[in-house]
């Protein structure tokens, strides 16, 4: 059993919980995730570790309450327990001094780039953050990211905060400027987490400029230890398992169309859980 130490609503449907999981906290690296089983009959769901505190032995999880299982987790209060947490899973982000690193987060993906910006900053990179949300009230972690990023750009779809438009617009602008610029602010790495269409667009953009780009993928998983293969993704024409080979892959080689289709595999069933199941 894993106790919920803190809980807060960050915004709208995005919730942050801090759970006591000392063994996992001790081992967790940037980019890794945990599998969470909230209650007795719950699904196993993968959630990226948004932060760790080894002195307190805690993990921070930030998630969007979008389906039944995330709502079930979001319904827990401080002091409640989560039945099972397994981790840390997946390969940690490769951290080194690249030079300039642009980290792009869309929606709840903002929470997922935070530990990467933190680790990249610690490795003495110049870190540029670009975060985007639908509107002002959905922008999360701005203050925390200001501490880990040398520069932080914010976009909202409706223009209610930051720049109106998408993260890809800002990225595109930066890449154009850096291309024309005489002094080098050219990014050595782009790291992106967000909805599949966002990651696909970023991959297309950075490919034109031939900039190494890493995306962290969120395929459907069951065991998340390599045993089931539910999380398979095609990368460079080869089937890879998101859980043991990923979750990060070279953005220029990922088959995003297939990923998006596989993510929609259980949509009907999901509706069944949220409302009422139609008679069989």
């Amino acid at each position, binding site marked *: 059993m894993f106790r919920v130490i803190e809980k807060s609503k960050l915004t709208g449907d995005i919730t942050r919980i801090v759970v006591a999981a000392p063994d996992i906290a001790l081992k967790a690296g940037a980019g890794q995730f945990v599998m969470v089983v909230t209650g007795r009959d719950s699904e196993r769901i993968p959630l990226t570790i948004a932060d760790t505190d080894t002195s307190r032995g805690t993990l921070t999880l930030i998630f969007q309450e979008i389906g039944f299982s995330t709502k079930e987790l979001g319904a827990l209060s401080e002091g409640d327990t989560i039945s099972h947490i*397994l981790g840390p899973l997946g390969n940690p982000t490769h951290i080194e001094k690249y030079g300039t690193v642009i980290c792009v987060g869309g929606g709840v993906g903002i929470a997922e780039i935070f530990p990467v910006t933190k680790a990249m900053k610690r490795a003495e990179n110049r870190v540029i953050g670009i975060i985007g949300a639908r509107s002002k009230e959905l922008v999360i972690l701005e203050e925390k990211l200001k501490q880990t990023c040398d520069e932080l750009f914010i976009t909202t779809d409706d223009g209610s905060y930051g720049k109106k438009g998408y993260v890809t617009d800002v990225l595109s602008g930066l890449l154009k400027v850096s291309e024309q610029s005489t002094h080098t602010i050219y990014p050595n790495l782009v790291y992106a987490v967000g909805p599949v269409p966002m990651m696909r667009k970023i991959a297309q953009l950075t490919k034109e400029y031939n900039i190494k780009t890493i995306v962290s993928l969120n395929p459907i998983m069951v065991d998340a230890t390599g*045993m089931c293969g539910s999380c398979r993704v095609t990368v460079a024409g080869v089937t890879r398992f998101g859980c043991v080979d990923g979750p990060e892959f070279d953005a220029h080689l990922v088959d995003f169309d297939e990923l998006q289709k596989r993510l929609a595999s259980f949509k009907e069933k999901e509706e069944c859980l949220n409302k009422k199941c139609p008679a069989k």
Partner: protein
Amino acid sequence: MRKQARLQAPADRIKNFFEVALGYSKEEAEKEAKRCLLCKDPLCVKGCPVRIDIPSFIRLLRENKPQEALAKIKERNNLPAVCGRVCPQEDQCEAMCILNKKKIPINIGALERYAADYGKAAGKQLTSEPQASEPANPRTRELKIAVVGSGPAGLTAAADLAKMGYSVTLFESLHKPGGVLTYGIPEFRLPKKIVMDEVEYIKGLGVEVKTDYLVGRTLGLAELFEKGYKAIFLAIGAGLPQFMGIPGENLSRVYSANEFLTRVNLMRAYAFPESKTPLNIGTRAAVIGGGNVAFDSARCALRLGAKVSIVYRRAEAEMPARVEEIQNAKEEGVEFQLLTQPVKILGDEQGFVKGLECVRMALGEPDASGRKRPVPVKNSNFILEADTVIVAIGQTPNPLLSRAAPELKTNPNGTIAVNEDYMTSLPGVFAGGDIITGADTVIAAMGAGKKAALAIDRYIKTNG
């Protein structure tokens, strides 16, 4: 006459996940036990990978002492209720039975199950839970051993080591213990209650079970030693599911058998939406493969309401599955597409399976396995109606642990390399079960667990 155990009728059982084989009644068990010749030099014992004293437990059943019979079995086998149900006795003890010369071997499997089920029920009334035997050397209790993986090999080794007096911790990555017994073998062949009872027995021996621990991630091998474990036994199972490498394998509703069975058995997707893990099963499922896992998948799919075909590239005689399971599946209405090889999975616009293109095969010369090699028949392509495809063609070893511990030597096929004492290239780290052999039976893994436990004991006594 050999007495077959009663079965749930096919028309009923295809609508539920309850156990198919119902087991012997008291009278049936006694009658079958009386057929045993109680051989002085019993061949059946030689056929048993864990060397159960079969004539002795059968003699006790004759005397209507199921509890004593169970104790006799447990001298050698820690999981009798499991083995009585899923062991391929026809290839092991029963194949060796002297009466098999007349094709009427003693039904040892059904008797083992009877002893396990009735012996436990009787035992509950008479005594408390089983206790670990007093350690021969009391000091050994302080010695900690880590067993990684709680499937048949891990459970067996943990139980034997606990009986020897060691302090054993059993690490399991999933949220429930049992390994393949829990996530793989379906409820109707091995009820999960039975598995959990066996796990409770092993806990009763003093074994500490820690779920949600992935060794290699949550804890490394070096850290286990740092934490004071004197030896580590890796029993981490067969690993990653194999796919065929044909177009369309990543369409939605294409599952590995592991995924399909895990959703159904571990996550209880058959009870959706009460259980929250979904499973998409269309109306026509094609299961690719001819082993026990393929048949388990097929019979689960059938119970979930699909029409099911087994697609197998060889003939029925070559199928590795147990004859009993093949027979059960036939009775339940599973269709067979034999000498058939899938070449492409067809998908619709949304990325869901809409058919399976196959080619017919003919049997040629025997191959390396001694079975006749199937060769494609030219221009025989056809489309099998299917909206769900389950791939049950085997597994390759999970690279996770060997990546986390690169000094752990592996064989060219990815299995962990061990010496004759089950020791890996790392001193004090042992391995057994499917991770060293590739996918094999429950009892073979248990046999490895037993031998490894003895080897670990020898290692500790020499190096302690």
